[in-house]
């Protein structure tokens, strides 16, 4: 079951993870936890002799969890919740409206005869919409959508999905200016054993996308010429590679449970002095 150690984390090629926090302060002090996360996609297997092919791998979805150990508590007000910015652009079509008013001025008299005025506006249908101020909603959509979710008093989770691309790419936030959360330490005495802050990136097997398996041997590659990308054999081969990587990714001795998430990366947050 145990594969060669340096390949165990092959799945972690799709993301890199780092985390740090400010020193733990006594007496209801706040400890800021920052996470640097980068999603990548790339062609793998090229420089590994055991791979008879190269392939593309990326993530469709992933979940980050930050958990703090007792007696630290998550300060709920401090959590970075990533609400997308919305800009509202209000466009007044003034000239058009003025034109319409001028147009109607001679023809109808408002109020005295409701029927005729309605009829007149209907006839000038091209101006009907200009009656109201036109409001456009322009939303700034980040490339990665982040949904945050509490998970008990000691853990918080963020789930990532691409907004307009097929897979996750880049950083979901600025790790320095946007710390993920602050942890509270409510006691006056410093802790005897420093409580740990653990950061884990997980995904489901179905969230891993493997594409475009290309045999390294040119003669073998030729046999795939003209084949549709959605051929069942391509799908089955991609699935097989996913299963192999999943097992290679498992911690030695861990249970083979296909319903549990794949752990892509785990780091212990390091304490860093503040400036």
């Amino acid at each position: 079951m145990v594969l060669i150690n340096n390949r165990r984390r092959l799945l972690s090629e799709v993301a890199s993870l780092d985390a740090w926090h400010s020193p733990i302060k006594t007496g209801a002090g706040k400890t800021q936890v920052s996470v640097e996360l980068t999603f990548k996609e790339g062609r793998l297997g090229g420089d590994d002799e055991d791979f008879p092919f190269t392939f593309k791998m990326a993530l469709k979805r992933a979940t980050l969890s930050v958990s703090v150990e007792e007696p630290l508590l998550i300060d709920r007000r401090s959590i970075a919740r990533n609400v997308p910015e919305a800009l509202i652009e209000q466009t007044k079509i003034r000239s058009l409206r003025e034109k319409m008013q001028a147009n109607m001025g001679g023809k109808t008299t408002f109020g005295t005869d409701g029927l005729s005025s309605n009829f007149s506006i209907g006839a000038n249908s091209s101006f009907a919409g200009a009656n109201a101020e036109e409001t456009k909603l322009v939303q700034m959509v980040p490339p990665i959508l982040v949904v945050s979710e509490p998970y008990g008093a000691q853990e918080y989770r963020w789930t990532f999905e691409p907004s307009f691309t097929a897979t996750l790419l880049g950083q979901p936030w600025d790790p320095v200016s946007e710390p993920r959360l602050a942890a509270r330490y409510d006691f006056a005495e410093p802790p005897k054993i420093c409580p740990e802050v653990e950061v884990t990136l997980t995904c489901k097997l179905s969230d891993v996308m493997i594409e475009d398996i290309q045999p390294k041997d040119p003669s073998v590659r030729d046999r795939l010429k003209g084949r549709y990308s959605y051929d069942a054999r391509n799908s089955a081969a991609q699935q097989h590679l996913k299963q192999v990587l999943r097992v290679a990714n498992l911690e030695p001795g861990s249970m083979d449970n296909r319903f549990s998430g794949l752990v892509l990366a785990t780091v212990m947050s390091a304490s860093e002095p503040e400036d």
Partner: protein
Amino acid sequence: LTSDIKSHLVDTLRILLAESEDLKVLADLSGLDPFSFYEGADLRNADLGGQDLRGLSFFEADLRGANLGGVRYDKGAFNGSILSDKHKGFQDQFDGRLSDALLEPLRRVYMFARFRPETLNEIIEFLSISIQKFSESANISTTTLRKAKKGYVISFETAVGISEAINKISDQLNLKSVEFSGKIQIPMIEFLSDKVTGGFNRISREELLNINALSVRITESRAARGSTNIGENLLWRDRPRMLQWYDRIYNDRPHSRIRVTSPEEINSPVLPDLFDSGADD
């Protein structure tokens, strides 16, 4: 999988270059358990028309745009998969597995269940065991077993009994065939909770797993508070919505010293005030 990654990667290539496009043939080439091989697979736009997919599970697989015309499949095999709208008829409400009914923390939750009749009948038939013997093994009456076989609502404990009996009997008969292990892993149970107004609410599998996690957390919280009413006392069970309520209380007031042991206490006029003045400082 063995320790030799190289040979597995050769298998990947073998599947890629296979003659057949038949999913069963390709799963057999994988050297892995064919039943679960396609779980979580990306099968978008695949042409599977006319294939025999019995014995395969497509849990969490993406089959949007795939051609499923004329395929043969096990009922429940597409539960939990992503399908085009026109193929929604391939799914039904029985999305829970026997293994879900056997999750220990769920025994502390007050719930109900219902089996897909054809699957349960098929399994009991496959085990070639009498109704009498089976119900004895499940520790239920033959009347209750008949109810379950007809797809009526049964208690969660009955579902646990039936699931345990299926596992026990198949172990005794040493049924290790691929066909049978697929048959008992297929989703076949619908979990339910009772409504205040009468009748039942469906609990999806995802909700069920959340309830399971909640149950674990609440038992831990209660133990941490020195509650006397935990774990081993299976006579006391909470409704799923009570678990959510407890979770909110415990998490919003992590250091509160208030112990909640029963809904009767919660309904007492004194406690709500105590919660409001709880230790949130």
